[in-house]
């Protein structure tokens, strides 16, 4: 009788379990946190480390030129953000952050465009355009080596929760959550590629798969299509919230933009 009850209990435990929208709780242990750099082949690391060969610098150079060039009727970025006031060294490591005035979460791209509109009277640059990528690459490069550190308190808290929700929510035809591969299976191999922990500290980055330079939102869109989930729009609040969540998760890792990745 005891056997029947035991088997019955085990059986019931396994069947018709209500399905969860979310993957189980997981994390990367504090001592195990590693940049995506650690998962690259030596040749790829060497490419990132060489300030000439790293193709990302084509965009950094473009951004620096834009930063110092006046568009018709406007002051240059360097006028305000020069050596004599509000230098941008180290700033990118603390993004995304909430805009005090509007309460909206801003990533680097959004902050640059807000600045253009409010302080220079200029049109925003299109997401993923060479010019916006250049500006973002240049500003981010001024934080190279700076440890990622974001504020998730106060007005940022709700965006952090939104990002965390997306990270753990199962989605797509494959019904997977980011956390499953990047918290639970990092270090394992998908064909020849090693699964990384999914940090964003090297973005915007040159991806060999793209043969092109791109933003973190472009990478997140690839992540979503990879599990056959409908990707969010560029510049979406959802992806900005995910950026904030990822940045908190990567806290302490050095900024590497412009990174080189697979």
């Amino acid at each position, binding site marked *: 009788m005891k056997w029947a009850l035991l088997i019955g209990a085990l059986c019931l435990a396994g069947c018709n379990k209500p399905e969860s929208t979310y993957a189980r709780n997981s994390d990367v242990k504090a001592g195990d946190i590693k940049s995506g750099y650690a998962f690259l082949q030596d040749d790829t690391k060497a490419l990132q480390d060489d300030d000439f060969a790293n193709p990302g610098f084509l*965009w950094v150079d473009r951004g620096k030129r834009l930063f110092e060039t006046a568009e018709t009727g406007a002051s240059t970025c360097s006028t305000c953000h020069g050596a004599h006031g509000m230098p941008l060294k180290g700033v990118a490591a603390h993004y995304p952050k909430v805009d005090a005035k509007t309460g909206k979460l801003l990533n680097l791209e959004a902050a640059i465009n807000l600045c253009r509109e409010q302080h220079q009277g200029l049109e925003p640059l299109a997401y993923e355009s060479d010019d916006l990528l250049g500006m973002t690459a240049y500003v981010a490069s001024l934080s190279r080596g700076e440890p990622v550190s974001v504020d998730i308190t106060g007005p940022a808290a709700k965006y952090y929760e939104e990002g965390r929700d997306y990270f753990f929510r199962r989605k797509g035809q494959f019904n997977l959550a980011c956390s499953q591969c990047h918290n639970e299976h990092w270090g394992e191999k998908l064909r020849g590629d090693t699964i990384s922990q999914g940090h964003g500290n090297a973005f915007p980055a040159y991806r060999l798969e793209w*043969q092109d330079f791109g933003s973190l939102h472009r990478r997140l869109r690839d992540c979503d299509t990879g599990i056959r989930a409908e990707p969010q729009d560029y510049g979406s609040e959802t992806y900005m919230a995910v950026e904030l969540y990822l940045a908190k998760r990567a806290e302490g890792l050095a900024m590497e933009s412009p990174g080189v990745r697979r």
Partner: protein
Amino acid sequence: MIRISAPDTAEMGEIVEVKAMIQHPMETGYRRDAKGDVIPRNIIKQFRCAYGGNTVFEATFFPGIAANPFLAFCLRATRTGPIEFSWTDQHGETWSETRQLTVS
């Protein structure tokens, strides 16, 4: 965008390393888009470096060359003069940049 790495000065006879990179998609012509249509080939075909008017390095590119092609080569510093880098694509469009080398 073009990036050049070349010394401003060199001693007579010194071997100097020169690097050049150009932003270009180098679309092979073998890829297909989401609809299944072939993405047309769009590549740089010729690169030439002239130093003091003489060709010191020349390369013909084919679709196997990756995007944003990067070249590094050496030349011997013999006289003060311009080092000119030029690229020509399959449509005949050209890009070039020049760096001055002062030889002592």
